[in-house]
């Protein structure tokens, strides 16, 4: 490998003028540095440690002299360049870095695949795990604050129906007297068939959904579903999950171009939907348990979803929806009911309260 007295032609720039000075370059006797013989400038002895590699290609090496970085040496001799890295042990880092850079496209693609797998594992497993742990550390009062920013916002109660609100709260307290004081129903005069819960325990029910109900068990089904959302802190979980997912994505997306950002962003939305479907299922199943504990016929919940299915008769594929498709929903509910039989009792009080509510609604 080593040819004694190996000499290369170099171009030297003195950092004062752009004119190239021609010269020759060789290694010193101890092979610890270079000896440069440059026209007009004379002889320069520079140890390797005083040189910085500015650019390294097979046919092109640029070195700068540390004491004055604008003095540079250009070498185009491949044999000399090769020898330089044989003798120069102080360039270990450059060597290591250069080796990876020149490991070839196959290695780089393998590394890229490794990065993708690592990011995917982080995104699908590690981040959700951390997000769940984070929720356990966050006190419930934060959920309350989060919900109150909505439920106590100035125009929130504009469409509220105060008489129905009173009746529904009475219904809920009669149905499940043991539940926490945080739960409070507000009935909105809105024909949209909808009901939802906020993290602070506020449950919003539209008159639209009340109009569609025929039996008190359906109302009990909706309430137990919404109460379960709050009990399981689904709002907070979704938020924590979403924020942490976004933090990771922004870290990665910083590096990625516009089009990719759109792809990943949309994929993230859909993934969030899958998470939300998981929560819906959880709320359905623990809602059923709540009904079971109070000896209420769980069939009401199934009737409710059948009604909702008729109401939203546009077929959206499940992966595009925040809720499970009703058919599948009805199936797993029926399975649950079979597995956990309910000791159904008469609920005259709930029934009469429901009739009263229906009277209010139909007026």
């Amino acid at each position, binding site marked *: 490998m080593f040819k004694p007295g190996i000499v290369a032609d170099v171009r030297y*720039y003195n950092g004062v003028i752009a004119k190239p000075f021609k010269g020759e370059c060789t290694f010193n006797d101890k092979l610890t540095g270079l000896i440069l013989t440059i026209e007009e400038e004379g002889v320069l002895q520079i140890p390797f440690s005083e040189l910085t590699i500015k650019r390294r290609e097979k046919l092109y090496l640029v070195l700068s002299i540390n004491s004055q970085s604008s003095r540079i040496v250009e070498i185009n001799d491949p044999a000399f360049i090769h020898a330089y890295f044989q003798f120069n042990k102080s360039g270990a880092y450059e060597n290591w870095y250069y080796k990876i850079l020149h490991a070839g496209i196959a290695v780089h693609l393998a590394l890229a695949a490794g990065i993708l797998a690592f990011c995917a594992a982080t995104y699908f497993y590690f981040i959700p795990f951390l997000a769940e742990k984070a929720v356990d550390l966050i006190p419930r009062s934060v959920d309350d604050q989060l919900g109150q920013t909505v439920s106590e916002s100035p125009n929130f109660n504009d469409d509220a129906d105060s008489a129905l609100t009173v009746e529904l709260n009475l219904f809920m307290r009669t149905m499940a007297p043991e539940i926490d004081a945080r739960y409070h129903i507000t009935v909105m005069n809105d024909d949209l068939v909808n009901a939802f819960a906020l993290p602070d325990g506020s449950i919003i029910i539209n008159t639209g959904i009340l109009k569609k109900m025929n039996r008190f068990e359906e109302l009990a089904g909706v309430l137990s579903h919404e109460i379960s959302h709050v009990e399981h802190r689904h709002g907070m979980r979704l938020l924590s999950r979403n924020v942490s997912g976004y933090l990771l994505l922004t870290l990665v997306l910083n590096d990625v171009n516009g089009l990719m950002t759109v792809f990943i962003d949309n994929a993230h939305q859909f993934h969030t939907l899958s998470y939300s479907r998981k929560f819906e299922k959880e709320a359905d199943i623990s809602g059923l348990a709540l009904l079971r504990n109070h000896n209420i016929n769980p069939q009401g919940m199934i009737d409710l979803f059948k009604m909702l299915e008729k109401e939203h008769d546009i077929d959206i594929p499940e992966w595009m929806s925040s809720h499970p498709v009703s058919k599948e929903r009805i199936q797993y509910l029926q399975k649950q009911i079979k597995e956990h039989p309910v000791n159904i009792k008469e609920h005259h009080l709930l029934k009469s309260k429901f009739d009263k509510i229906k009277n209010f609604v139909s007026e």
Partner: protein
Amino acid sequence: MEIIEHKSLHANPEKVYPFSFVGTGGAYFGIAIVNIILKIFTLGLYYPWAKAKELQYLYGATSFDESRFEFHGTGAEMFKGFIKALIIFALIIGGFIAAMVMQMPILGFIWYIGGFMIILPIIIHGSYKYRMSRTSWRGIRFGYRGDRKEFTILFFKELFFTIISLGIYGSWMAINLRNYVLSNIRFGSAEFKYSGRGGEYFVLNLKGYFLTLITLGIYMFWWQKDLFNYYINNLTLHHKEGKIRLKSTASGGDFFGLIIVNLLIMIFTLGIGYPWILTRTLKFIFSKIEIVGNIDTDQLVQTEKEYTDATGEDMSDMLDLGFVI
């Protein structure tokens, strides 16, 4: 007049300066991959070093008159700038949040928008100053000689006219800022000069906008070509009596091919082909710039000081400004 003619008789003969980009997508891909790995393991803190590596590669792969350019900014410099930039951003955003919490949204918005407005010209100034001082060719540094105060005043004057003209003055603003910034760039003892005119730029944009609408977007490529040509063709370099002119030979069809192929690479590689897009774009751009003149590049002399504050560079990154003007 006679003296000038007399001098030009003694000037060097005209020549065409070779100018090209010799980087490859494969090499750049390697750099990007190593950078991403290191960024992941340092939770993003490697970012300034990664950026230095990428710029060093791109500059070093650009060849002018048989010699390469060099970017000699370092990760450490840019890391300091990165931290300063983070603090400034935290102040602006923190002030905004504090005002929101204290129920003073108007004050918050003024602080937020005002804060970014005030730092914008400072960012542009700082990023040029740093980037130019860290760029060299045959050891001769570039430099930015613009004055921060002067540029800030110009920026707000132009911004004021743009706002009261409901944006119409925007073309003049862009060109006046560009004239200022580019004409303050030094290449050792040589000086760049940009001589664009807002009126011309306005007509070009107006034409581009309406023809793009009429042709359902197809004219966009020709508009892009016009913008590129306007940038390149108005740029000159002066040294003593010598002068170098830049001339673009790009056509609308060239841009059409470039952008469509880039888009296809992007879609079919799901973005992983980005390094190839970048390198082929640079190859394209540099191959379409013809540099002709009579400056003897060997006679360029070191004149510019070093400047190590990278805050502007990092902030322009965070706001995704790139090189705005």
